[in-house]
């Protein structure tokens, strides 16, 4: 296992360098410039050229790439858009995105797995069919549309603002109220983010469960007279959850990969919005750094998924 991990780490590192070079080339080659995004007659072409020089945009692409790397590791990488250190900009938003995604993932797992088990247990019953219908609905409804509807309904019902991470005036709030206010603002976006994932995961659990209960050893367990419940929740469930545990590995990049649409709709100050605005403004340092961080997380996620497979499923061995 040790040599396997070492080898995987090496591949991961090489892949990472490849990804960063490729995305750098793509980003730089995209039309547009971070300077003078609008046609402003009061900004002469001479000044635009000077600013391009200040941002090193007049240098060859490969030099710009190494400059970016150097600045990233010496902490001197600044955003074009507001002159702030890129890592600081990402750092202050990453927790917001993390919080939102963590809560929605909690909702997904805590609701979807019981739902899937329940559906499998009563296959083709009315409730199972209802679950299937709900899952397809959840997958096919565009989340931004649902978000609008839910926001409208909430505002109409309670007349209390739902946008943003918190109410914008909280000075006269007690600590308890501040916490509740944060929770209130978390509620809608996390539920909506969760709906899609829930629909998928409950189906996944259901089919995995159904597959397992058709196995021979389940029949054996039943035949030797074990109570139905024990067979179901102890023997079948454990095996059915194997593939789901490995899903955790793939969740890692999803944790910080902000959702542009949800963050915009709910005015949530997260990574997705930052990345989107940076792309629009051709803020190369920010776009590149977010790309790289996401790539690192995807690679780590894959890596962890691989390891998890080995740990939870004794049938898999690494050479």
């Amino acid at each position, binding site marked *: 296992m040790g040599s396997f991990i070492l080898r995987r780490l090496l591949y991961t590192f090489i892949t990472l360098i490849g990804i960063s070079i490729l995305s750098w080339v793509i980003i730089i080659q995209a*039309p*547009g*410039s971070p*300077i*003078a*995004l*609008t*046609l*402003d*007659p*009061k*900004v*002469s*072409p001479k*000044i*635009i050229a*000077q*600013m391009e020089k*200040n*941002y090193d945009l007049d240098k060859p692409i490969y030099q710009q790439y190494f400059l970016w790397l150097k600045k990233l590791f010496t902490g001197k990488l600044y955003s074009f858009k*507001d*002159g*702030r*250190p890129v890592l600081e900009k990402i750092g*202050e*938003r990453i927790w917001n995105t993390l919080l939102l995604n963590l809560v929605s993932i*909690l*909702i997904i*797992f*805590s*609701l979807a*797995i*019981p739902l899937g*088990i329940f559906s499998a247990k009563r296959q083709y019953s009315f409730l199972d069919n209802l679950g299937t219908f709900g899952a397809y609905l959840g997958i096919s409804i565009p989340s931004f549309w649902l978000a*609008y509807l839910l*926001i409208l309904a909430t*505002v109409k019902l309670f007349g*209390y*603002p739902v*946008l*943003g*991470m*918190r109410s*914008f*005036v909280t000075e006269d*709030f007690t600590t308890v*109220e501040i916490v*509740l206010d944060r*929770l*209130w603002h978390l*509620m809608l976006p996390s539920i909506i983010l969760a709906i899609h994932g829930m629909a998928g995961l409950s189906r996944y659990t259901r089919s995995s469960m159904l597959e397992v209960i058709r196995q021979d050893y389940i029949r054996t367990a039943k035949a030797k007279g074990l109570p139905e419940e*024990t067979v179901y*929740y*102890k023997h079948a469930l454990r095996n059915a959850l194997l593939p789901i545990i490995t899903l955790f590995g793939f969740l890692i990049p999803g944790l910080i990969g902000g959702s542009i649409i949800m963050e*915009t*709709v709910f*005015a949530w*100050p997260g990574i997705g919005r*930052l990345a989107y605005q940076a792309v629009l403004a*051709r803020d190369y340092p920010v776009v590149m750094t977010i790309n790289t961080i996401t790539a690192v997380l995807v690679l780590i996620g894959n890596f962890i998924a691989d390891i998890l497979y080995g740990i939870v499923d004794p049938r898999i061995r690494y050479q």
Partner: protein
Amino acid sequence: MKVPSERKDLLRIKTILFISPILFLILLGINIVFVGSRPPQKVNQLVISSIGDASFLNPILAQDSASSEINGLVFNGLIKYDRDLQGFVGELAESWKVEEGPEPVITFFLRKDALWHDGKGFTAHDVKFTYDKIMDEKTNTVRRSSYELVKKAEVLDPYTFRVTYKQPFSPGLESWGIGIIPKHLLEKEDINTTSFNRRPIGTGPFRFLEWVTDEKIVVEANPRYFNGKPHLDRIIYRIIPEAALNEMEILTRGIDYSGVFPFEFRRMSQVPFLKTYSQPGLGYTYIGYNFKNDLFQDKRVRLAFTHAINRKEIVQYVLYGLGEVATGPFPNHLWYANPHVKPIPYDPQKARRLLAEAGWKDTDGDGILDREGKPFRFNLITNSGNDTRRDVGVLVQRQLHEIGIDVKFELYEWSVFLKNFINARHFDACILGWGLSVDPDAYEIWHSSQIEKGFNFISYKNLETDRLWEEGRREYDVEKRKQIYWRIHELMAEDQPYTFLYVPLGISGLQKKFVLVEESPSDQKIYKPIKMETAGLMYDLIKWTVPKEIVWEK
């Protein structure tokens, strides 16, 4: 013995599985109860919505409107436009004098009672520092163009600042309205990356309090402001990135003041606690004809197009009636727009006649005009992502088709549009808009010297207007400038290098609870309604307030 433990195990698994949905529902319930008991807001404040976050709270670096708006509250220029946008009034300069000549000199006499928000006194050294920083090539500012004709800038004494120009340049005066930044705080900093840009210290009526990224920016009243402490306690800019939800926030009173889109205007004007305001914007939308294309060299063709395009219909359907038909290169409501120039009427008959005079007739009966066997066909382009321009293009395409012109209408992503078409001068006609500064000088857009590298991308050349644009920027006398720009307006309307389409109205909504407060000699407060000034609704912002009895309302 084995069976009970099995049961316990089972119970544990079941509990884990099913407790989380129940916990979730309980949390939801607590939240909903909490929402019912929310406390009322108790502050005399103005909440403004902004679609984007600010970038630099530093007037010499800021380019976006969100930053500029906040900088306008935190910083002062030497001078600013008066409420009619005609002349200037002093801000940090108490008075100033302009000595005309081949090398004009402007001397500013500064206020002695202006303080930075950190308590230090403001002096002419700060002005010089601001100027030097703008001119420093290492500073990433786009403002430098306006100061390129400055020969020298000097501090005569701590309260006198003098600028000498290389040649007469009247639009230069406007550029001294830029916010002045403090020398003592920025001297040793890298202006492009300093943390000052996020925690600004200025001299303005409001001082910076807090900036929560992508959420809000808060400024509070500056008690030592030289023109008196503002009546509002604070102003909060909330960042709402989505227009549809902005409307909802207005309706739940989460926002007091906001820009309003034309399509929202009807709904907004029916909200009982909201007052809507409108005013022509500083800019216009147009169709520019590329003069490098032979099709558009003939004035009769351009005139015919303007006759054939029903601009009233465009304003009515695309802008929901919230715009004015443009008559020339200036916004209709300002002093330099010639009121005698009337809009060219919609007259497709006349358009056909003019085209026939220019030799364009439908000889083969296919419904498309032709000349020497070539049909009248061209590409009209604009940028994607702007729905208004897209709709305008579709209407224009149809209207021109009615007089027998075949228009192909295409949309391109903004940066591709700029690089491959506009800057490459490679297009037939384009729909675009100009946002202008208050000063009428548009030399960069119209002078023939700007064809090669400037903003005259339609390659328009007219010796008479060239001369007038030159004259206009050399003249300091407002009355004489007016004559010059009125003449330009006439000539342009006649020549139609663009089809000037419309000047959109800027619309905003403000809660009715805000009023202007004025103190009478007997120390009594007199409340007046807030009204739209030519210089904008917020011209008298420091006098805005919410009267006490309303402040406490839930």
